[in-house]
C-alpha cells in the first residue's frame, strides 16, 4: 500500500501532509508513532470512569495529533467529542464515542497496512 492509498482509505488529506512533511518516508515514520499514541485508549478509559477533565485532555490530544497527521476523518470526530467534553456534556461525549471508535479503528487498520 502506498501513502496515497492509505490516506484515501482512511479519509486523510494526502496533499496536505506531503506539503508539510515533504517525504513519504517521514510520513511513514510519523504514522508509526501514531500507532504508539495512547490518547484514544485513555479517552475510552476516562469516559468509562466519568472523569470529564481527563477525558477532555485525551480527546484534545487525539484531535491535535490527527491535525498534525492530516487524518481528516478522525480529526472531525475527535474534534466533536473534544468540544462536547469542553462543554462538560458527558452524555453527548458518550454518544459521540461510537463514531470516534469507528474512525480510529479504520485509521489504525490503514496505517498498519501501510507499514507492513
Amino acid at each position, binding site marked *: 500500500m502506498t501513502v496515497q492509498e492509505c490516506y484515501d482509505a482512511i479519509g486523510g488529506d494526502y496533499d*496536505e501532509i506531503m*506539503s*508539510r*512533511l*515533504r517525504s513519504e518516508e*517521514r510520513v511513514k515514520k*510519523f504514522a508509526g*508513532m*501514531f500507532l*504508539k*499514541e495512547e*490518547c484514544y485508549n485513555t479517552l475510552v478509559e476516562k469516559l468509562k470512569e466519568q472523569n470529564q477533565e481527563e477525558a477532555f*485532555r485525551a480527546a*484534545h*490530544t487525539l*484531535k*491535535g*495529533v490527527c*491535525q*498534525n*497527521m*492530516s487524518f481528516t476523518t478522525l480529526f472531525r470526530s475527535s474534534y466533536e467529542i473534544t468540544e462536547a467534553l469542553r462543554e462538560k456534556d458527558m452524555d453527548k461525549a458518550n454518544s459521540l464515542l461510537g463514531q470516534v471508535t469507528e474512525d480510529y479503528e479504520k485509521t489504525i487498520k490503514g496505517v498498519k497496512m501501510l507499514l507492513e
Partner: protein
Amino acid sequence: MAKNTILIVDDAELNREMIKFIFEEQYNVLEAEDGQQAIDLISERGEELCLIFLDLLMPVKSGLDVLHFMNLNNYIKYIPVIMITGESTDESDEKAYEYGASDIIYKPFAPNVVMRRAKNIMELFEHRIDIEQELDERTRELRDSRRKLEQSNDFLVNALSSVVEFRSLESGEHIHRVKYFTKLFLKYLREFYPKYNITKESAALIVNASALHDLGKIAIPDSILLKPARLTDEEFEEMKKHTVYGCELLEKFKQDDNEFYHYCYDICRYHHERYDGRGYPDGLKGDEIPIWAQVVSIVDVYDALVSERVYKSPYDVNEAARMIRDGECGIFSPEMLDCFELAKVELFAAAENKFSYADSIEA
C-alpha cells in the same frame, strides 16, 4: 555559553517529533511531556535555551503554569516562547500573550513557516538582549566616570579654597565647617521650603561652591589679611572687595551654561549682602539675593561668631544664636532664621565638638 538548545513541551510524542525534525539538524533539542518536566528543565538548563515551544493543555502542569513560572523567575525576558495550539480562541490567545508568549502557532503547521518564525523571534530576542547588555555596560561606565569626575572636582575645589586659608594662616577647618553647615541648611530648606525648588543634585553643587566663598581674599594684601587687630575703615573697605575679586577670578574661566559656575559666582559675590539691602558689594535686597548666597551668608556669620579670631574669643553657641536672631550680626530673611532654628541642635553640636576635618569629609 552558546544558547543553542530548543525545548519542546507537548504531551504527545508525535507532536513533539513534528517540531523536532524541523530543528534537530541545527539545534540541540530537549523534550518535556508535561509542564512540570518543562519547569525542571528550564530551571536546570535555562542558560542554554534559545526557544521554547509550548503546548497549552497538558497533564500535571499546563502551559500557562509554565509561563507563570517563567514570569516569576524572569526567564520570560530571556527565552522566547511560542505557543502551539490546535484551535484559536480569543480568550486563550490573549491569555498566552498576556503571560508573555512571543507568538502562537496553530496546528497543523508547515515546517518551513515554523522555522522562519522561530528564527525571527530568536533573532529579535538575541538583538534585544545584546542591546540591553550594551546599555548596562555603558551605564556602568558612565556612572564610573561620573564618580571619578566628582572626586576630582571635589579635590580641586578643596585644594583651591584651602589656598586662601593657608595664606591667612588658618587651619582649614572654617571651609569644612561652612560646607557642613551649608549642607545642613539646604537639608531643611529643601524639606520645608519646596518653593525654592532646590534638587538634591543642585544642593550638592551648592555645598561644593560654598567652599569658595572667600576665594577673592587671595587678592587682599598681607598687611590687611594678616593684620592681628581690628581693621581701619579704609582697610575694611579694601577687605570688602574680596567679594568682587573672587568674581573677577572666576570670570576668567566663565562657563555661562554651567550651574556650578553660577553658584560659585553668586556665593563669592553676594555672601556679604544683607536682607535689608545694607550689605555689600551691590546692596541687593530681599529675594534679589540668590538663596544659596543667603545660606552661605548666615552660615559664615555663625561660624565667625563661634570661632576664635586674633581679635576676639569665640562666643558661646547660645549667645551666637541670640545675636543672629536679634539682628546684631546682619539681617537675614525669615526663612533663613527659621532654617537656623531647625538646624540649631546640629549646628551647636558641630561647633562644640571642635568639628574636625574627618567629620567634614564624611559630611
